[in-house]
């Protein structure tokens, strides 16, 4: 009864509704989150239900309305700020980096920061270089911020509820192309801790570590690799800060091969951290250097085919796995 198939945006919407119903200090603010219902429908219906004080349409002033969330959180409110796209979050880096992440620390632990900032991020469909980028690496480098990257409606629901309940400043990066993807939601299931990585598919030959939309890519690649007798284990990180290294290490120690799959640009991207840390921690288990499948180091082209060519594909993951497995163990033939 509890389980049903719903859209990712609907899962987020239900999480917000559940938290707002249970706690008067939870409120939402952002551009077009109220009357309009949110660019990706995430806040649909909440304005009518909770009114303009709790679902606040803001002017186009990212720095100040994100900072408003910081100030409100300092007094014990639980604001959920929506930034329309991660690209605009650059304007809000000051409140995110200098304020939300630092205030609990700089105050010697006096002020909690129960702030949630949600934003879609990633390469969508032909939005051009200013509207299609991945900035998780920028936020990962900020001590004090936590980052969740839900890949499924189930995780979107769990992780948003957990983020709102937490006293840490937490950023949810929701991939643009996931909002209208469907998946099962069981609201009664016992949630995983927000930062725990999940093994989505068990395997013995190679570990594919990924997050957000690219988890699906890895699962499809793993399916095809299985036909070639390469069994890939797929890990969904779910959280980019902190990262659940234990789950990753356990897997790599089993498979001895690691591929990090991400949509972030390769140079100094999120995957660089994953590859470097796991290379350090699993050096003696690895049969070959860790591989990275990442986006090209180029601003996202507008042209559709070039855009697709700039980010990883299922084929890229498959060929990386084939290569790694044949290099490391010539016995496994692609």
């Amino acid at each position, binding site marked *: 009864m509890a389980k049903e198939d719903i859209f990712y945006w609907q899962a987020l919407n239900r999480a917000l509704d559940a938290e707002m119903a249970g706690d008067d*200090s939870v*409120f939402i603010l952002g551009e077009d989150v109220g009357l309009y219902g949110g660019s990706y429908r995430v806040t649909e219906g909440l304005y009518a239900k909770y009114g303009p*004080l*709790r679902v*606040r349409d*803001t*002017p186009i*002033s990212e*720095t*100040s*309305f*994100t*900072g*408003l*969330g*910081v*100030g*409100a*959180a*300092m*007094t*014990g*409110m639980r*604001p959920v700020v929506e930034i329309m796209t991660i690209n605009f979050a650059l304007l809000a880096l*000051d*409140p995110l980096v*200098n*304020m939300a992440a630092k*205030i*609990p*620390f*700089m*105050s*010697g*632990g*006096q*002020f*909690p*920061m*129960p702030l949630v900032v949600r934003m879609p991020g990633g390469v969508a469909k032909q939005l051009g270089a200013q509207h299609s980028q991945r900035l998780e690496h920028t936020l990962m480098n900020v*001590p*004090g911020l936590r980052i969740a990257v839900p890949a499924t409606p189930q995780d979107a629901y769990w992780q948003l509820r957990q983020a709102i309940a*937490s*006293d*840490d400043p937490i950023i949810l990066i929701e991939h643009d192309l996931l909002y209208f993807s469907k998946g099962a939601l069981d609201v009664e299931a016992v949630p995983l*801790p927000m*930062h725990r990585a999940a093994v989505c598919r068990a395997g013995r030959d190679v570990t594919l570590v990924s997050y957000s939309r690219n988890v699906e890519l890895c699962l499809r690649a793993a399916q095809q690799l299985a036909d070639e007798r390469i069994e890939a284990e797929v890990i969904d990180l779910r959280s980019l800060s*902190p990262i659940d290294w234990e789950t990753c290490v356990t897997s790599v120690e089993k498979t001895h091969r690691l591929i990090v799959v991400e949509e972030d640009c390769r140079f100094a991207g999120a995957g660089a951290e994953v590859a470097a840390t796991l290379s350090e921690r699993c050096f003696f288990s690895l049969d070959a250097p860790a591989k990275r499948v990442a986006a090209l180091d180029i601003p996202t082209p507008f042209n559709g085919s070039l855009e697709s060519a700039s980010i990883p594909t299922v084929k890229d993951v498959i060929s990386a796995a084939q290569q790694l497995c044949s290099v490391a163990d010539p016995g496994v033939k692609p």
Partner: protein
Amino acid sequence: MDRDTLRAFLRDMLLARAFEEAAAEQYTKGNIAGFLHLYPGEEAVAVGVIHATEPSDYVVSTYREHVHALVRGTPPRQVMAELFGRRDGISRGMGGSMHLFDRERRFMGGYAIVGETYPVAIGVGYAIAMRGLPEVAICFFGDGAVNQGTFHESLNMAALWRLPVLFVCENNHYQIGTEIHRHSAVTEVFRRAAAYDIPAERVDGMDVFKVHEVTSRMLREIRTGGGPRLVECETYRLRGHSMADPGSYRPQIEVRAYASTDPVSMAVRETVPAYPSHEQLTVVGKDAIHHATEHGLGAGHLDSAEVDGIKSEVQQLVQEAVEFAQQSPDPEMADAWQCLHVNRRNESLT
């Protein structure tokens, strides 16, 4: 103005001056490192404004905030220990001079990025509005902060939603070393509030009574649902921007003229300025001596023995603060990790 209020104003201004001069001395001795932005000359603003607030109000401050915290009631020893970076500092040695926080007194922090105070203040104001309480968020900022985008963004939202925020501009005429005529197209800061329909006034920031009077009235208006207000206090800092700044960009005549208008300096032996000559004052064009006399030793309300009593009281308090700071231990790395992870309650991230 009753006698007790007058005495309290004078006491806090003297404490502020003595504290900041002691901090300067400790900086020179190497006990305080980093940036140290001192407040001498501007005391009438902090005292006039904060004495008009209630304990249930919130104060959001800047990087020149030691005196805001002191007047708000943070014990001088905890402020000094923080300047020293010690464990008993009000921010446990993690914040330093520019990041004093005092949750108990609703002192919402000193912020070292110019222009950050507005969003924090409107956030506090939003929370107050949601709870429907008669509280106000006091937002301090300097003249150098009015050209940040957050000034316009936040004033717009404060006015749009009628948030209970009092914006207090401490116009000391300089953004570090750039004089206001060289950093702002409109040098009367209060006029900018008109763009957002926020009632605003300019007040002589060297006159603690006027600052207090205007602030009290504005706070009453805000508490009764009037929406935000802005007060611009024209003041002057007698020292450079920070201890690293000798202030060489300012004409000496200007510094001396302002020093003589200063309500506190006359009462603190160590910092009595040399008065400018009549000719020099004519150049500056301000009847500074009259101003100073008016606000000096209580305009006849207090006798000099009482003033001496207050002076020795605050000197002793500051001396104790310095000794307390010296004796406080350095924090350990474990303290730093605890401050970082303080929010995690029962959640385990291992």
